[in-house]
């Protein structure tokens, strides 16, 4: 388990730095305003917040799908606008056309497109990296399958492999646990554990607060603004959840113990 405080001083350059990031309202996107945080190398951080809080907007702004109004983003200390460093991006699965004519191998190779370069074909080296990425997520034997023929958990792992094939060590995962069963969730978590052990830094948006509180050592709470940033026991407290979720959270006090009930419609 790694957290910023335990990292040696020489690793003080953060894997990801976000300073005062704001994105204005456009229809279909939630606005985010003045968000700042840093991820240390090898940290795995959950991003939570109600529907429409701007979790996906934050990811889209980080990868450059929507322009920033203000703010600064850097990967390993290099400004994102000028650096060649890339985010590994695992989009929400609902945005993917699963009938698309592509095999598992094809999808993972897409992560290599920038590295291969214009007007060039994938080399043997590229194919090796694709196979290694598939090995890392335990999907090598499915390489020739059409992507629609996979289970929910397998699909997520293929997209994680694609992000790894980008040869980047900062991954953004948008709702990787959405709509998968308990078994698939465990598979994905095992994959993420293995990646973290290899020093991969991950920011993971999730609806699943139980998961965020038990399987992460740091949680960011957003609702347009960054509301809280800390360990689960410091973040899952009545005051913060009320500010993030408003009247969708019910808090009941009894004998000095509080019980929180959250009404969160699935997106």
């Amino acid at each position: 388990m790694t957290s910023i405080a335990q990292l040696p001083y020489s690793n003080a350059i953060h894997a990801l730095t976000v300073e005062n990031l704001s994105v204005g309202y456009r229809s279909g996107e939630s606005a985010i305003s003045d968000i700042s945080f840093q991820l240390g190398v090898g940290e795995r951080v959950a991003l939570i917040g109600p529907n429409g809080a701007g979790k996906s907007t934050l990811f889209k702004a980080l990868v450059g799908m929507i322009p920033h109004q203000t703010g600064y983003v850097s990967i390993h200390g290099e400004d994102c606008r000028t650096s060649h460093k890339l985010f590994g991006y695992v989009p929400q699965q609902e945005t993917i056309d699963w009938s698309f004519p592509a095999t598992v191998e094809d999808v993972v190779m897409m992560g290599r497109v920038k590295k291969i370069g214009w007007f060039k074909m994938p080399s043997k080296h590229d194919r090796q990296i694709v196979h290694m990425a598939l090995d890392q997520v335990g999907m090598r034997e499915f390489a020739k399958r059409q992507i629609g023929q996979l289970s929910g958990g397998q699909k997520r792992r293929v997209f994680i492999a694609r992000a790894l094939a980008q040869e980047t060590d900062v991954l953004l995962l948008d709702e990787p646990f959405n709509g998968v069963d308990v078994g698939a969730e465990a598979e994905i978590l095992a994959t993420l554990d293995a990646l973290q052990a290899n020093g991969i830094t991950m920011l993971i948006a999730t609806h699943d607060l139980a998961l965020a509180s038990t399987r992460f050592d740091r949680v960011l709470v957003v609702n347009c603004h960054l509301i809280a940033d800390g360990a689960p026991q410091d973040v899952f407290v009545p005051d913060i959840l009320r500010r993030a979720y408003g009247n969708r959270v019910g808090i009941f006090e009894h004998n000095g113990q509080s019980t929180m009930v959250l009404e969160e419609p699935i997106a």
Partner: protein
Amino acid sequence: MTLEEIFIAPLQYEFMREAIFAAILAGLTSGVVGAFVVVRGMSFFGDALAHSILPGVAIAYIYGTGASALPILSSIANEDVRLFIGGLSAGIFSAVLINWLTQKNRLKEDTAIGIIFVAMFALGIAIISTDPRAYQRDLTHILFGDIFGITESDLWIMIISTVVVIGTIILFFKELLVVSFDSGLAHALKLPSGGLQLLLLILVAVTIVANLQAVGVVLMLAMLITPAATAQLMTHRLHTMAMLSALIASICGVLGIYVAWHLHIAAAPAIVLVVTTLFAITFGITAFRKRVWHH
């Protein structure tokens, strides 16, 4: 009738040989480009673009020569090249206009397409109707194609377009694949996502205008969609799908010419009906095999 009488005898006519050559070229481009149109779900856009080239073709046709000629158009000596440039300009104009209207969610994409497509088509018909002779005779050729009347310069335009379109797709294949499958990844990889999307729209426009004489505006969509949809039933990789689609479109194009010749029907609908028949058969076989596999 012997096979020789069916397939070889008609080839004694030059217009028949040229029609077959044109059908092959049209099949190659519309097959390959159609694969992208199908996987990106752009069929409505493709249909709209085919219709919206009409005013450009009409202006080039009516104001190309004679007393009312526009200097910029009459400077192009060859009429077929004039029509090609007129149609392509109108096509690219419409594509950019639709793109602009849908940006920042001003309008839903299908609404924008619907408005621009019919307006451009109406404008084209209005322009052609200023010349009663053209309205009666030539509008039919533009709408439904005239593959038996294809000229040598038409064929040259088709050859050059085929080389340019297929060459561009080969050169940018992996980038176009990423943009078509997941535009989020295209951004994360810092690929010029907008430029690649525009490139694809331009390739669709070039394909449509180049194949105008062969297939016509109204039936163009079938050449873009049906061979590619048939190919998608046979494979699950995009490059195989594009190659199969080109092969299917070319073969069906040639068969359609023969059907038109022997049954004395118009060529473009014959081609469309042949390719649709092949789609229906492939769909049936696929559905049957799925049932067998699953039981």
